[in-house]
């Protein structure tokens, strides 16, 4: 058998770097680019993070809260009078 055949041994186990050549010439774009956070997003997140705000809600120049005149809104701790039908 040895006289009539030639042995060819294939062994690529030694090629432990075969995967790395896949990345030749590739690089993640904008590696050094810092993320700009828009002010609106920042403000929005501020509100999300800090639920308690000292600012009064916008009332479009009126003194109404949810459509009810300010005078009609009962003060905290008072009882709302019953409305007669």
């Amino acid at each position, binding site marked *: 058998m040895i006289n009539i055949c030639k042995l060819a041994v294939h062994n690529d186990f030694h090629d432990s770097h075969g*995967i790395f050549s896949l990345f030749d010439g590739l690089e993640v774009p904008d590696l050094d680019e810092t993320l700009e956070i828009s002010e609106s997003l920042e403000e929005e997140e501020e509100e999300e993070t800090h639920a308690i705000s000292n600012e009064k809600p916008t009332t479009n120049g009126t003194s109404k809260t949810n459509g009810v005149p300010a005078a009609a809104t009962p003060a905290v701790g008072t009882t709302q009078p019953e409305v007669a039908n």
Partner: protein
Amino acid sequence: MNLAQATRMILEGLDLIPSVGVVTPSLPWRQSLGLNRKEENVRPIFWKNRNKSYVQRTQEWDEFPNGRWGDSRSPAYGELDAYGIGLRGTNEQNIKLWGHPKAVRDISNLFVRYVTGQLNSLPWSDQPITVEVDSIKEQLIELNKRGFLTINSQPAVNGVKSTHKVFGWGPKNGYVYQKAYLELLIHPELLSELITRIERNPDLTYYSVDEKGNLKTNSGDGGPNAVTWGVYPGKEIVQPTVVESISFLAWKDEAYRLGKDWASCYAAASPSRHLIKSVMESWYLVNIGKLSSLYIRFRPLD
């Protein structure tokens, strides 16, 4: 003669005491001491650097893969909310460890520091890098410098002795093998080019997934594929580490969750939080295995 010392002296004199040599582990991964896991001898490679998490997420299993990985539809991994699976440490500790990344370069520098041993952990690796990757360390550093964030890897090993001090495991007089394996986070713009290159080489298999679970693979049915195996006298071939699709999807949930946990360490409006979150939401988790082969071809003489 009842004393141990006398018996020992006789055995030593007869050269019957085994020499204290390199003690290799019985498997390539650290076995759990749980009584119900005594027979366990196959695990997916994905949790190689998060051993405890794997044990935690599989603790409800009635039986563990033994001999070979069974039906891939059967494993049901535990929830990510269980204790011990999320990111370790307090926000302050993690920020101190990993700083305030503001660009992808800052994140890739953390990976480079991890691979070079200057950093002991990353969100995806509980323990320092091992000497096992020494032979591919330069390539890993180079990849990370270019923004490919390497999470897990192993070099190819061609039949080293089972007593080898780095790669050895199992009984003595055996030989162990490994496929080259690489797992990394890939920028979305580079994914299609990478997959095109992989598919040109029939020896390469890959799995790619995004945070939402969109999976791509060239591995047919995604069944188990051994990446580590050992050959021992009088035993069947042992295949203790596999790559397999269902487990990869379970690992994917954990990997993206760990990244998001890291992002949450930073203030809501901070650049670091937004950067890490955007990486987690848009980058792909990809693993690549290289099927090495050894065969002898007979050719008639000319």
